[in-house]
Structure formats: structure tokens, C-alpha cells
């Protein structure tokens, strides 16, 4: 009977803890939802501010820009970082420390300082590639490097990449086959985490975009919150939901890979 009592106490603690966390996390979201749907001067509800997100061309175009930035940044980061990190592990392990140092460097420099430094470079970027907000991709790749590096590094450390690669080589695999068919499937979780953290960072990035005078979702929301607070809050909540959906999609994708693998 004691163990049942213990089990009950444990279950109650869990439920209470879970409920407290739920309240802590969801209350502000509910408040945002409440505020963004309130009709001014009445007790009724309206979805006007949510509709603004789609109908207002400034907001909708900033959403498109931010989503495109997230996709481009994630793709460019993966294309640059994944092969580099695999190659360093397999072929030039002595360069590992240098790559780690370079990738973690953006963490140690405040974004403000980076922007001041990078604005000179951006004069050239604008001159060569035009003034599209999508040119922010280059700065964002630098920004997300430390986080993506950590995710990929942890994944690479969890498998014996060198031995697996040597085994594949001895069976006749060239380097491309080794990377695509042996290493990548084993660090897939890390690749997805890196992709997610990069997308999430880009969707919420304010400093770079604001100081370099680009219109992205966060900068537009920043301005909106001063003129039309309701739409601003609706936009912030939408961005949060988007990131959550993205996370759910990625984890569902990872799970599906695992289950099809087991079949």
C-alpha cells in the first residue's frame, strides 16, 4: 500500500508541477490572444487585428521576408557548416579547435558591435546585390553559427564517425557516399536541431534588421506596437505559433524517419 501512496503523491506532484508550468507559459499567450481580439470600447470580440496581418501589405510582406530569410539562412548555414564539420572530423581533426573558435566567436561579440562592423560591409553588399532585405541572410548565417555548430558538434560526437567512414571506405565507398549515406543519416537529429534553432533565431531577430534598416517581421512588429498595439501583439503571437508549428513539424519529421527506418 505504501508504494501506491508514494505513487499517488508522485503523480500529484507531477500534475501540480505541470499545471504550474502550463499556467506560467500559457497565461501570457492567452493574455496576448485576449488583448489582440478585444473590441475597443465594447465587450465583444473581433479578429480585425489578425486580419491586418494578412491584409496590411507592410505586415504580410514582412512575414514573407522573415520566412524567406529563415529558409535561406538555414539552407546556407547547413550547406556551409555540415560538410565542413564532417570534413574536419574525418580529414583534418587538428583544425577542429580553429573551426570551433571561429563558429563560437559571434557569441562573444554583442550583436550591436557586429552590426556596427558589418554595416560597412553591407554598403558593398547593397551595391552589388541590391537593397533587398534578403541580403540579411549573410549576416544571419554568422549570427546562427554558434548555435548550429553546437547542435551539429554534439551529433557528430555521439557517433564514431571516423571508424564508420573508414569501414565504408574499405567497402568501396567514395567520400560523397560516405558523407551522404553513412555520416548524414547518423547525425540527422543534430542537423534538424541546427535547422530549427537557426530558423527560430532568424524569425525573432531584431537588432541587425532594425539597425541596418530592413523591414522584417520583428522590426515591423516593433513599429506596430507603438501605433497599433493590438495588431503588434497579434503578430508576435503569430510568430510564436509559427515557430511552434515549425518545431512540431521537425520533430514529427524526425520521428517519421525513425519509424520508417525501423520497418
Amino acid at each position, binding site marked *: 500500500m505504501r508504494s501506491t501512496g508514494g505513487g499517488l503523491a508522485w503523480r500529484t506532484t507531477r500534475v501540480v508541477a505541470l499545471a504550474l508550468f502550463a499556467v506560467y507559459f500559457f497565461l501570457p499567450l492567452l493574455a496576448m490572444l485576449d488583448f489582440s481580439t478585444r473590441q475597443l470600447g465594447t465587450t465583444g470580440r473581433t479578429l480585425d487585428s489578425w486580419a491586418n496581418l494578412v491584409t496590411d501589405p507592410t505586415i504580410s510582406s514582412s512575414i514573407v521576408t522573415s520566412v524567406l530569410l529563415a529558409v535561406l539562412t538555414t539552407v546556407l548555414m547547413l550547406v556551409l557548416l555540415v560538410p565542413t564539420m564532417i570534413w574536419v572530423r574525418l580529414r583534418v581533426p587538428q583544425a577542429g579547435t580553429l573551426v570551433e573558435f571561429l563558429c563560437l566567436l559571434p557569441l562573444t561579440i554583442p550583436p550591436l558591435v557586429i552590426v556596427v562592423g558589418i554595416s560597412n560591409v553591407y554598403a558593398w553588399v547593397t551595391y552589388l546585390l541590391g537593397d533587398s532585405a534578403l541580403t540579411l541572410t549573410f549576416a544571419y548565417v554568422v549570427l546562427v553559427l554558434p548555435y548550429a555548430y553546437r547542435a551539429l558538434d554534439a551529433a557528430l560526437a555521439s557517433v564514431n564517425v571516423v571508424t*564508420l567512414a*573508414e569501414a565504408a*571506405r*574499405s567497402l*568501396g565507398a*567514395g567520400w560523397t557516399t560516405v558523407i551522404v549515406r553513412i555520416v548524414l*543519416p*547518423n547525425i540527422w537529429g543534430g542537423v534538424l536541431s541546427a535547422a530549427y534553432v537557426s530558423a527560430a533565431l532568424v524569425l525573432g531577430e531584431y537588432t541587425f534588421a532594425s539597425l541596418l534598416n530592413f523591414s522584417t517581421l520583428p522590426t515591423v512588429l516593433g513599429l506596430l506596437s507603438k501605433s497599433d498595439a493590438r495588431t503588434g501583439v497579434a503578430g508576435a503571437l503569430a510568430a510564436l505559433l509559427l515557430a511552434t508549428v515549425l518545431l512540431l513539424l521537425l520533430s514529427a519529421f524526425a520521428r517519421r524517419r525513425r519509424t520508417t527506418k525501423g520497418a
Partner: protein
Amino acid sequence: MTVTETTPGSSGEPGSRSTGTPVSLVGLRRTYGSQHALDGLSLEIAPGEMVVLLGPSGCGKTTALRILAGLDRADEGRVLVGGRDMTRVPANKRDMGMVFQAYSLFPHMTVRDNVAFGLQLRGHDRERRLRRCREMLDLVGLSAFEDRYAHQLSGGQQQRVALARALAVEPSVLLLDEPLSALDAKVRVQLRDEIRRVQLDVGTTTLFVTHDQEEALAVADRVGVMREGRLDQIAPPVELYARPATRFVAEFVGLSNRLGARVEGRDALVLGRRLPLLDGSVSSGAGQALVRPEAVTVSESGEPNARVVSVAFLGPFSRVQCRLDDGQVVVAQLPSAAVDRLGQDAPVRVDVDAEAVLVVPD
């Protein structure tokens, strides 16, 4: 340094299995910084032969194997397989199968896909791959496990799958890099015997690297003992054990007593007995004879010249340690039945009963 070498195939067996490919390593040198991993290593492996490179860690045996596999490069020297110079050929074009010390099955693939991987790269169709897979898994006794993943197998099973995977592509050379050292003692012995059985079955030329002398002696056609990047001696296991060419070989392979000896002509005097000298011994004067514990006899009859210090029971055999009257300590290995009456401090007669001995300088 002279290398005592018995020519490949002289043990009779391997030459007759003609399916394998001959391998030659010629004057291999490899340095890491200031350390010489290989210092002019040359080695001939006959078709179908299993050569085991044995030596302490850092002696260069794994480097030699990795250079043959193409996973490391030699600073100097050549690698010939079937008469073809492979020195500059990349690992994936060398047509070799390798089993690693660390578990190396691809974790995201089933046993079947692991074994079929090399066949798929060679463009074999699905039916042929599956047939070959089944053959190989039958060979290592794991047909029932083809849908499992590596993490669902024990260490021994993983290494057997790795062996099946390496052999599935019908490699010209099989390379085994300490494949048993991560396993526990009992599995190690089982798998060791199984590797030898499979190797004899398929007749693939094999280079096996280990630091475990028992393993080496048990499976090899010839054992090469390495020290500081060179071969000290390469010979069939029996010859290596009975006729070590150097002090290092005598001491590294099996246990050896060191007993005071005098060299007279082609003989050595050890404990009053005259025994033929092995090549590599000192040419005259006093030295130390290296005598295997099995070559030492202990009896209660005869004029005593020693006292029993201790008796260690090892199952069928016991190890008896005696102190000779002149203070030297000698270890004998005797059938347990023969020593059950020997008590501590009992006076005994110790003699040496070896065909020949190696006498090294004091």
C-alpha cells in the same frame, strides 16, 4: 637487425589454398613527428595465408595494417597486392575487407543492409545481394538476425556481422584490426576460432593484428612479432614458441625463466645439463638461458637442488615456483595431477628438458 623469417607457405597449409592473393609490404616507413611507427617493415603474405602481427602497443602493427588498407600512407616503401602496386591507390579502390577494433556497423542500417552495403556499391542487383547476404550470415551463424540493428546485437554478434560484411564483397585481402579486444574472454575465444574457421573456408589472404599472444598463436599460419616498427621474427606459431630468435620474442611470446648458463661451443650448460643452442644466442661465455615453464621438470626423486616456494592451481595445469640452491627462482608448469603432493618448502629436483635454448647476454 636480422629478421629470422620462415618463407610463406613453409607451414604447408596456406599455399595449397590458392583462392587468395599474395601481398607484399616492401620497406615501409612511417613517422609521426619524431616517432618511427614503421622502420623499414617488409612482409610477404602467401595466397590464402593468415599472418598475425603481434606486438606491444606502439610497435607499428596497426600502422602496417592501415597502410595496407589505404587508410594511412607510408612515407616510404611499397604495397603490392597480387603483384599490383597499390601504394597510391585510395582505400575504396583497394578491394579489401576490414574488421575494426571499435564496433563499426552502420547504426542506421539493419544487419542485412550492412552486409549488402559493399555489394550495392559494386552495382550488384537486389536478388544477388540478398543471396550473398544470406550466405555470409549463414557463414557466421547469424541468419536469424538480419532484420536487427547494431544496438540490438551483443558485441560478439556485431563483430561477426562486421566479418560477414567484410567478406561479402569477396575481398582480395581480409584485414582484422584487433577485432576481439573489445569482447569478454569467453566470447573472444569463440570468435577467434570462428574467424579462423571462416578464413580457412573462404581462403582469403588475411592480415590480423593483435597484442594478445594466445590469440596470435591460436589462429595464425605465421606470426610476425613486431618491435619498434620492425619485425623481430616471423614464423609458424610452434616454431616461434619453441625457437624464439631474439630475447624480445622469447619474453613477449609466452613466459620464460631466465637461468644462469655457460656457452661451450654449440651447446649451453644450464643447471648442469648440456642443451643445443638456438641461433641468436651469445657465442661464448656466461649468459642467461631463456627457458619455458613447460620445459622445466620438478620431481621429488633425485638429488634435491631446490625448494618449492608456491604452487598455483590453474585447472589442468599448475604453476610451481621453486627457489634453486643458488638463489635463482624458477617457474615450472606441470600437470596438476603431478604436483598435488608438493607442499611448500618441500625439497625437489629441478631440471631443464628443452630441445634447445636461447642464451642471451647477462
